[in-house]
């Protein structure tokens, strides 16, 4: 009953998390491209001020209203102000009054200062987009691991004093969405480097404790190329230690040795990941520089794996 590519990637809402700099946005964008080519309506949701989609697709920054950033791929950025107005509108029903509330100078200062307001309006916006049947899959780019944990913890943080009232509804909607194994998956992206692996294993352990969260895939990005086989590696080591030392070609051998070690470290890291994390895994080989090439390479790899 399992399709070649796992079912989690077909759910409507997909969160992506992982240590900064592992290429999370790139993996997410590649998946969006593959989804679009498969005839779906992917929507990339970015949080905060940085929009990676614009960098990856060489387009303008995504705005609050979804716009097409690549053929069939839409992106939106959850900007604080409009998201806040959207949230208030959902309570007061009248947008003009909501705008007045959001712009009231005293309330404004409160909204900008109070902890949790960002997270609440973001959750509300994601739930709002998820309720819109035009989009699927919705791919949410969570910034860093710490940030992601805070984000998923919010409902329980608010739980303490929200017995009822409007925020209760936001929290319930978000909790229901996160807990719905049919609709939602959280993917972890990492690279096979020691620091990233430690952080990933830690993150995974934290998430595992939460039975209401449904983990999807582990993506291992930027796996270094295996340039040399074992015999060739031995030859390089032997030459560097002897006949080739100090010769004009020695730096090239040193580079080869260095790259071989890098691959060796990566293999060790991947063994560690497989040992500690029991998620279905997709690996992507390192691509030559240039975001267009990287994206094309990754989305081709996703399609090769049987993604539909």
């Amino acid at each position, binding site marked *: 009953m399992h399709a070649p590519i796992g079912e989690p990637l077909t759910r409507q809402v997909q969160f992506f998390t992982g*240590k*900064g*700099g*592992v290429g999370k946005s790139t993996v997410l964008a590649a998946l969006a491209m593959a989804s679009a080519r498969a005839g779906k309506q992917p929507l990339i949701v970015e*949080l905060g*001020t*940085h929009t*990676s989609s614009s*960098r*990856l697709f060489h387009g303008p920054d995504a705005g609050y209203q979804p716009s097409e950033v690549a053929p069939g791929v839409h992106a939106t950025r959850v900007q604080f102000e409009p998201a806040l107005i959207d*949230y*208030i509108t959902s*309570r*007061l029903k009248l947008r003009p*009054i909501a705008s007045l*509330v959001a712009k009231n100078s*005293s*309330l404004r*200062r*409160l909204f900008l*200062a109070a*902890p*949790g307001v960002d*997270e609440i309006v973001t959750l509300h916006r994601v739930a709002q987009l998820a309720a819109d049947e035009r989009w699927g899959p919705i791919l949410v780019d969570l*910034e*860093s*691991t*710490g*940030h992601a944990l*805070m984000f998923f913890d*919010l409902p329980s*943080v608010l739980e*303490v*004093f*929200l017995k*009822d*009232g*409007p*925020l209760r509804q936001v929290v319930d909607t978000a909790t229901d969405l996160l807990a719905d194994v049919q609709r939602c998956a959280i993917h972890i992206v990492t690279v096979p480097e*020691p620091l*990233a692996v430690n952080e990933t294993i830690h993150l995974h352990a934290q998430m595992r404790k939460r039975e209401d969260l449904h983990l999807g895939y582990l993506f291992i990005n930027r796996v270094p190329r295996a*340039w*040399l086989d074992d015999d*060739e590696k031995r030859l390089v080591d032997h030459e560097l230690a002897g006949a*080739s030392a100090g*010769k004009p*070609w020695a*730096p*090239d051998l*040193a*580079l*080869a*040795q*260095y*790259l071989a*070690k890098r691959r060796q*470290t990566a293999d060790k890291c991947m063994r560690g990941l497989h040992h500690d994390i029991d998620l279905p895994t997709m690996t992507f080989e390192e691509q030559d*520089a240039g*975001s267009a090439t*990287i994206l094309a390479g990754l989305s081709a790899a996703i399609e090769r794996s049987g993604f539909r």
Partner: protein
Amino acid sequence: MIQLSDDCRLAFCVGVGGVGKTTFAASLGLGEALRGRSVLVLTADPARRLADALGIRDLSDRASDIPLPTTIGAGERVRGELHAAMLETKASADEIIRRAAHDEARAQRVFDNRIYQAFSNTLARSHAYAAMERVHDAVHDARYDLVVVDTPPAQSSIEILDAPARLVSFLDQRVVRWFLQASDESPQLRGGAIAQGLLRIVAGESLVSALTEFLTEMAFLREGFSERAKEVRELMRSPSTSFVLVASADSVGIEAAKSVAAEVRSRDFALAQLVFNRAFIPEAAPPSDDPVTYPERLSAIAPKLARMRALLTAEEEQKRSNIAAFCDEHGLGAWSLPEARRPLGDPSALAAWIEQARPVSLST
């Protein structure tokens, strides 16, 4: 050698995630300690990276002493000191309350407050406020000549940079007053009462009541808190404060660096240094046009060697031109650092790594 100016008392390392910011912050602090200063490296990132880089088991909210070599270079005695701490939001917040409350019962009432309990332990903004307080304390602590702050990845680091201004604005007496006295019928407070009524609709009765209770309980703290937020805001723009942007030099990294630089500049903070990590591999030969001729016995792997060299040379060349363009755009020189051979796990490895830094000067 990468170093800060002698009168720099506070340095913020900023940049997106995964560029080696924490490792660099540790190295920068170490370098300054080795040249005789007493340095605190404060990480606001909850990941264990700083402890790992410095080779110590654990870091906590309380500063730990990092053992330094007793001599450097030609037997010169090391006079500096290196301390490191990891910001824990809850621990920092509790400490702030305890100190400001002066008596245990008053502090306990805050600790028992639902809003305090819910928010002191989590959430980006709480974290940012705690960081602000810690920076304030550390800068005024006579034990340190220099405080190096390792900020969390981009979005949250902006949160930290904006925290003082947002807090000052909210703690403004008028705003808090209408909150606490909105039931008062005086005309200047009526607007507040209306706003609070609307807030009850959008945020809920229970939350607004809890918030009001919290602000009342916290009354004794407000003044000092707001005062310190103002001081930190000024401190961040002081000539003795430097912002160091750490970035990677590949095309995607440069684009990310551009947006961080713009964020820093738009707040009128002084970008003092640029550091590009993983800009080169020290083992690789410097690029040259002369083709290398491999001996006969290497002929089987010669094509691979040539391909590796060509690829790496092209990559480094691309990075060099990215860095040069970035420097010219910002009118700043930069340092490029090599990819570290292995995870840097102690002060001597850090020192050896940062010593390989190559300066990049402006082309114009």
